[in-house]
């Protein structure tokens, strides 16, 4: 196990965004965080990454609580819908990721090839299309050095072919031991690309496990993630 999350809670005034959330994350797995819109997926990622304060809860690794500094070396979070450094070129953004965020220079060319970023390198990030921006964001994430990478909606704005290529890239990085924790609201996508799942609904974790494990929990025979999800949430 890479780390576990226990008792994570977050309120926005009277609204409970996360309530006593807990789950496990294993090394080298593709873990899907699935749930309907408003379930608290982005909030959970932001709290884990420390870009949003949580009310309570802990991240534990190796039997010990991981403090804020430890979390920064354990995981990196790529938010959805942002356009960082919009006036700078994609090439500069990738170099900045390596230079400032401590990314791995050895992966630079591989990531550019995997995400087909070559033709975009000279373009300012702000001039890219939605799908292109997403690929650049994924490139930034994949270049970072933390063992766990949290990506919010990695397939948003991508066509089927791009989604498949990127899933293959994720698989290649996971095969080297990196954990990819993906927040996905399209359950069909999650079922295609992930090994295990954390089901989040109304700020609570309903279940976690592989599709067969979840199916057993749900008491359903069919190994269809959508039916399992509906049964458990």
């Amino acid at each position, binding site marked *: 196990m890479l780390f576990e999350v226990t008792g994570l809670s977050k309120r926005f005034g009277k609204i409970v965004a996360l309530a006593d959330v807990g789950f496990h994350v294993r090394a080298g797995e593709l873990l899907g965080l699935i749930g309907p819109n408003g379930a608290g997926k982005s909030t959970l990622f*932001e709290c884990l*990454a*420390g*870009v*949003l*304060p949580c009310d309570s809860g802990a991240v534990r690794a190796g039997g010990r609580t991981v403090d*804020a*500094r430890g979390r*920064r*070396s354990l995981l*990196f*979070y*790529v*938010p959805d*819908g*942002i*356009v*960082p*450094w*919009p*006036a*700078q*070129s994609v090439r*500069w953004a990738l*170099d*900045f990721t*390596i*230079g*400032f*965020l*401590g990314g791995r*220079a050895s992966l*630079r060319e591989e990531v550019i090839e995997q995400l087909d970023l070559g033709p975009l390198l000279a373009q*300012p990030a702000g*001039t890219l299309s939605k799908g292109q921006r997403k690929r650049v964001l994924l490139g*930034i994430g994949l270049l970072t050095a933390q063992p766990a990478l949290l990506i919010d909606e990695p397939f948003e704005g991508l066509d089927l072919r791009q989604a498949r290529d990127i899933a293959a890239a994720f698989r290649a990085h996971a095969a080297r031991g990196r954990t990819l924790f993906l927040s996905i609201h399209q359950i069909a996508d999650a079922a295609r690309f992930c090994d295990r799942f954390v089901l989040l609904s109304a700020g609570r974790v309903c279940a976690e496990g592989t599709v067969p494990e979840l199916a057993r929990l749900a008491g359903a025979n069919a190994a269809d993630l959508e039916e399992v999800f509906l049964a458990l949430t």
Partner: protein
Amino acid sequence: MRSRRPFLWLLDKECRELLVSRAWWVLLFLMGPLVGVSFIGAVRTYAEVSGLNGTAGGVGEALSPLTGVWAPAFSACELAAVFLLPFVAIRLISGDRLSGALKLEMQQGMSPFARMAAKALVLLAGWLVAMLPPLSAIPLWKSYGGSVYPPELLTLAAGHVLNAGLTIGLAAAMAAIAEHPSTAAIMTLGVTVGTWILNFFGAIQGGWWERAAGYTPAALVAEFQHGLWRLDTTLVALVLTLAGLSMAAIWMRIGIAVRRRAVWSATIGLLAAAAIFACTFLTASWDASESRGNSFPEADERALREIHAPLSIEVHLAPEDPRRLDLEHHALSKLRRAMPRLTVRYVFATSIGLFEQTAAGYGEIWYDLAGRRTMSRATTAEGVLEAIYSLAGMPPPAEAAEAAFRGHPLAVPARGAGTLFYICWPGMVLAGGLLVRRRFQ
């Protein structure tokens, strides 16, 4: 790819963000015409009082380039610092939050104070570039045959850099606290207007309000414009700038609960208030002006230093009475520098003093030196010195004629200034802006 320290990467990023900031290019563009208008007008007036176009020659015999040319020429910096620089600073601070880059950058783990320092350094560098037009007026003035006294120019430029630092600190804090740049801009301008109100209130109320008004950006710049470098105002400006930047750093830590950030901000505010209070007890100052306009003649200063007993002065004049302004500017401000143990107490019943004129004792200035008291109504430097010497029982020192500032009259038109400030500088800025635009797109 170059191998650099993370902080250098951050500096590189902030420089790039400044270069693509339209607000900064607008600031640069406008500095040329702003300086041009004030410099050309100042040189024309200077020339006229120096005898140009048949005006009485010798009127400007004791005219100083500092007050005649440089203070007006550099006043463009004050205008830009109030109305243009805040937008540049807010754009640089808020940009990361708006684009989402902040969420990535803060995961690097670098101290938010270091990240804010990178922004402040780049903004300061950007401001120094914006100060090139008034600085380029110096060689122009020299080419006319004008006199340049470097210490007073350095003091004036330092005052405008300090003022810019204050603006950057304030705008940074507002940009970090407010969710949106437009809110930050309104808040920044609101604080600036607040300092103007404080100046107005200080002029009417006197007392502590007047003392507080002495530390506003406008008062700070006014002192440096007269070539006076005061340790207390300099340190207060630095404390306020650092407090603003620290608050900005705290509020950029979006991963910390708002309540905790508010507590830290309050702590910073209290520490800054304590530091400012301590600074107000520092009395050291340097008169960098060639004319020694902020000091008594050297012989008088030497004589005053011989008086060791504490001197207290009680002034029965209302805050808005012009005699009080005369007394304060021409005598007491100089006396405070020469006699740090001086205490001045103003006694008044109304703010304008119009209806106090007939009151018994109004207009009197009482001097108390080691228990000996005397009264005078004179508000000139000479009158004040005379009263003090008579109390101290010492003769006034002889005037040293050779030490008196004779001035540098110069009756020449501002040749080439229009071309430089209205055509060359805006043209260079436009060309630079277009080149940068092409480079980044």
